[in-house]
């Protein structure tokens, strides 16, 4: 016997299994139906429900002895007509929503077999409502009605079922348990072929549904607080409350339970209630009522009072009231066990409470809400929008009904534009999975078909780039009242600053700030900002290498936006478009940044990056944002003609590495490729000449251009693993950046050319192309080779030859670093390299073990091409 079959006879189990089997077959067959099929069936069912609204109401009254015939008939009509009005144009089959701009299509998937429990208070209307929802969404339902309402529910289901099948619905799509028991419910709630439990009813039913382990929509009791604020339209409010609270003798769980009334209007309101047929109880009557209709043991309403008329309740309690009394009003002084009538009362007894202020009223409403009504419904009558706003904020209710009746308002579609329902989700406050008015979308699994999107890409560069010999003359075209030239002492001594000054408009006041030729420190940057402020500068000319230009970029940032927090702006990010920390756009000052580079490597004159050293905290901060890019770049080779040989080599290799990494980056585009390829061509051709013959103007000019062009590429495509490794290694062993790059370069190229162990996720990369890009570069350089493999090998060989020609160390061992020292450093180096954002655009996603292997290859050095380390098998074996 199954675990869930305790206390059930074999016959009963067979009966329940039969229901499930029919429902399961119907649900399976139903998956084939189209939107037109279900819409046709739903319309026919709705008409059947409307035709039978009154007779079903009569059956419900006869069986349950609760409520009002006319109101139950209206509920049946709302459950059909109003629900139909909401669902008729809704797509619930196949593609139900298209978001072409996002590439998303939402597709409806039926749930299958739903086990649905319905309440005694709204029996037939709830069945009609759930039948319509089920057909609209192509689901089958097994109903388990309240034991004291199952006959009327079965009839409601029959009306719906027969009309549905007549119009093509699958046989067995609805079934209803005859004489249902708790054991039946227990069995079906745990049945493997039941996909969802939809439990509308009391606490125990909802709790059983949620504890079954099945997905469940369990919506339960409420305790609706009402705030009647002094600005309210009192006549309307009183009529609305009487209408709502007496509707079907108060059986709708959204009906008003306790009305909190501002002191100023309290007496008037009670008088109006009395004038319209309510009986306002005195203190003794209230106590008597509380003792009688509320169970003192549980603090909950007595079942015998549910859905009864006010006059019948009064008679039962022993109150003397006129026979046409609509409502019993019980003034209470607070909320909680000492005030038994402050709980839910599904009958026409309404508690009222006086409040001396809005704050007190809100507190009382919150207490009522908490006393069994969390997440359900609340009502406010007020013409003060601020009061309504505040009420909406502090009250935990899925439906906050404004200036209208609670019960009919919460049903939706009558007094407001909420979704029509007979099942009120109460959110987590009520222990429910939803806070919505339960509707067709809760009867669907909604699938998202997500088409591949292509992230927007960009090519952002400074507005103006002037190049070739004497390009510095162009500074005269930039009017400036006050300019700060940021440079370093050596360049000032060499006369470079004088060259710049000579070319500036005569009317410009010029000041010079010579800063140390090292990665800028915060205090140096702040000196510059102070100078800019004192000088009230409108232009900065950064004359120098990467350090000087980086310093000037940060000076500009802090001058224009003094509140910019450099540490915060350096926060890591994965995608610049989605970064958490945004650079300031509001500026106190405006200043033009003209960058004149005096080295041919970093390309800082066009990049959006700046590195800052924080000596106090002993760390480097990298800033990256396109707002850091200089406004004007001047690439004038006269400033690099005297660059020392070692610096020429280091910066030249840095430039080559920028271009090679940008070329195979996952962010590479035709725009960056054109720059990367051209820079590589220029480096291979002119770097050896510039090193061999430093006064060769053409070679210097072309290398200066190459550095800038490569920077244009990597500013937009970024770099890769080579830079990540070089940063980590260079910092640890004090090796110049270009030299560190050189040690890694052939090995990283071979690594990137092999089939990756892990591909880098990127919507922009439609295929793995790094090896083909290297082959393309080999073709561009005329290196020969017939296959992609040959071409890659030839490119790596050519790169190694170039490095040899430049006489750079080709292995870490050659630097005099012992194997033992290196071995000790490798684990940290790999970790640091892995944390470096540079590799995020690398075509291969590096594993830690691969970073370690690359470091060791660089230690041993030489022969990346000859050893064929880019060979797929070899790389796989290394892993």
């Amino acid at each position, binding site marked *: 016997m199954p675990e869930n079959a305790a206390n059930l006879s074999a016959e009963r189990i067979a009966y329940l299994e039969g229901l499930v089997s029919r429902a*399961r077959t119907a649900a399976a067959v139903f998956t084939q139906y189209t939107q037109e099929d279900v819409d046709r069936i739903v319309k026919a069912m709705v008409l059947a429900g409307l035709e039978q609204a009154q007779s079903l109401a009569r059956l419900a009254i006869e069986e349950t002895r609760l409520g009002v015939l006319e109101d139950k008939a209206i509920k049946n009509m709302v459950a059909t007509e109003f629900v139909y009005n909401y669902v008729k144009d809704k797509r619930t089959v196949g593609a139900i929503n298209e978001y072409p701009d996002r590439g998303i299509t939402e597709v409806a998937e039926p749930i299958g077999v739903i086990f649905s429990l319905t309440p005694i208070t709204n029996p037939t209307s709830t069945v009609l409502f759930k039948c319509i929802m089920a057909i609209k969404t192509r689901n089958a339902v097994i109903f388990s009605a309240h034991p004291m309402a199952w006959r009327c529910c079965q009839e409601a289901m029959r009306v719906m079922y027969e009309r549905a099948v007549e119009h093509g619905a*699958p*046989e*067995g799509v609805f079934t209803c348990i005859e004489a249902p028991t708790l054991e039946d419910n227990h069995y079906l709630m745990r049945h493997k072929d039941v996909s969802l439990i939809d439990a509308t009813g009391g606490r125990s039913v909802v709790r059983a549904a949620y504890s079954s382990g099945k997905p469940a929509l369990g919506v339960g009791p409420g305790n609706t607080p009402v705030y009647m604020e002094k600005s309210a339209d009192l006549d309307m409010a009183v009529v609305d409350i009487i209408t709502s609270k007496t509707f079907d003798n108060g059986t709708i769980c959204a009906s008003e339970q306790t009305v909190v009334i501002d002191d100023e209007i309290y007496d008037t309101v009670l008088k109006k209630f009395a004038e319209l047929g309510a009986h306002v109880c005195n203190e003794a009557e209230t106590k008597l009522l509380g003792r009688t209709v509320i169970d003192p043991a549980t603090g909950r309403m007595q079942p015998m009072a549910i859905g009864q008329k006010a006059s019948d309740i009064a008679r039962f309690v022993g109150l003397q009231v006129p026979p046409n009394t609509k409502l019993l009003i019980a003034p209470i002084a607070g909320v909680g066990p000492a005030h038994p009538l402050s709980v839910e009362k599904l009958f026409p007894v309404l508690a009222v409470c006086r409040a001396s202020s809005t704050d007190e009223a809100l507190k009382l409403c919150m207490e009522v809400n908490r006393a069994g009504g969390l997440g359900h419904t609340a009502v406010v009558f007020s013409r003060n929008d601020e009061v309504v706003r505040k009420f909406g904020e502090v009250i935990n209710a899925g439906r906050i009904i404004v200036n209208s009746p609670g019960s009919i308002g919460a049903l939706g579609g009558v007094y407001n534009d909420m979704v029509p329902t007979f099942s009120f989700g109460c959110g987590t406050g009520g222990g429910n999975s939803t806070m919505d008015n339960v509707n067709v979308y809760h009867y669907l699994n909604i699938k998202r078909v997500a088409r591949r999107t292509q992230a927007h890409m960009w090519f952002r560069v400074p507005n103006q780039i002037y190049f070739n010999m004497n390009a510095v003359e162009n500074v005269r075209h930039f009017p400036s009242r006050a300019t700060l030239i940021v440079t370093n002492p050596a360049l000032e001594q060499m006369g470079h600053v004088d060259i710049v000054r000579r070319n500036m408009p005569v009317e410009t006041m010029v000041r010079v700030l010579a800063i140390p030729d090292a990665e800028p420190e915060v205090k140096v940057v702040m000196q510059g900002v102070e100078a800019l402020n004192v000088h009230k500068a409108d232009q900065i000319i950064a004359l120098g290498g990467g350090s000087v230009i980086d310093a000037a970029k940060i000076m500009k940032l802090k001058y224009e936006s003094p509140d910019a927090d450099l540490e915060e702006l350096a926060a890591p990010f994965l995608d610049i478009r989605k970064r958490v920390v945004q650079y300031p756009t509001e500026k106190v000052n405006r200043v033009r940044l003209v960058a004149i580079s005096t080295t041919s490597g970093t390309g800082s004159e066009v990049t959006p990056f700046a590195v800052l050293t924080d000596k106090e905290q002993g760390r480097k901060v990298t800033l990256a944002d396109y707002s850091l890019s200089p406004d004007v770049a001047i690439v004038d080779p006269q400033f690099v003609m005297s660059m020392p040989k070692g610096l020429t080599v280091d910066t030249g290799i840095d430039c080559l590495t920028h271009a090679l990494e940008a070329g195979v980056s996952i962010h590479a585009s035709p725009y960056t490729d054109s720059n990367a390829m051209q820079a590589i061509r220029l480096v291979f051709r002119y770097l050896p000449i510039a090193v061999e013959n430093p006064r060769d103007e053409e070679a210097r000019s072309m290398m200066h251009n190459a550095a800038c062009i490569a920077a244009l590429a990597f500013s937009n495509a970024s770099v890769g693993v080579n830079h990540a490794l070089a940063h980590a290694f260079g910092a640890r062993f004090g090796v110049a950046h270009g030299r560190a790059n050189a040690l890694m370069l052939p090995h990283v190229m071979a690594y990137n050319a092999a089939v990756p162990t892990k591909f880098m996720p990127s919507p922009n990369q439609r295929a793995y192309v790094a090896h083909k890009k290297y082959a393309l570069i080999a073709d561009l350089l005329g290196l020969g080779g017939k296959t992609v493999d040959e071409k890659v090998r030839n490119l790596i060989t050519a790169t190694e030859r170039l490095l040899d020609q430049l006489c750079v160390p080709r292995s870490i061992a050659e630097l005099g670093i012992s194997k033992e020292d290196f071995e000790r450093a490798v684990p940290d180096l790999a970790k640091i390299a892995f944390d470096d954002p540079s590799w995020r655009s690398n075509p291969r996603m590096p594993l830690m073990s691969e970073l370690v292997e690359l470091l060791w290859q660089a230690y041993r050095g030489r022969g990346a091409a000859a050893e064929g380390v880019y060979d797929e098998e070899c790389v796989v074996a290394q892993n």
Partner: protein
Amino acid sequence: MTKNALWLKIDGAHVTRCLEDASARLETCEGEAVLDFSGVNRIDTNEVHALEEFAAKAAAASVKPVLHGVQANVYRVLMLMNLAPRFSM
């Protein structure tokens, strides 16, 4: 009596009748019984039951039931009813 493999094209408008016909011919069938479902766009609850019965009878007759040309939406119904594994496709 000669026994042959069965190949029957199922008429989408008369699926139950075709399946009953196929069931009746299982006795004279050996090897496999192939039902060509390419003309069936949708099946209803009775047809699901008829397929269940056919699968049971084929198993009893030691005939391998094969469904040919089943459309995806019909296959989904067979999957949901755990019927798909009882047929070769």
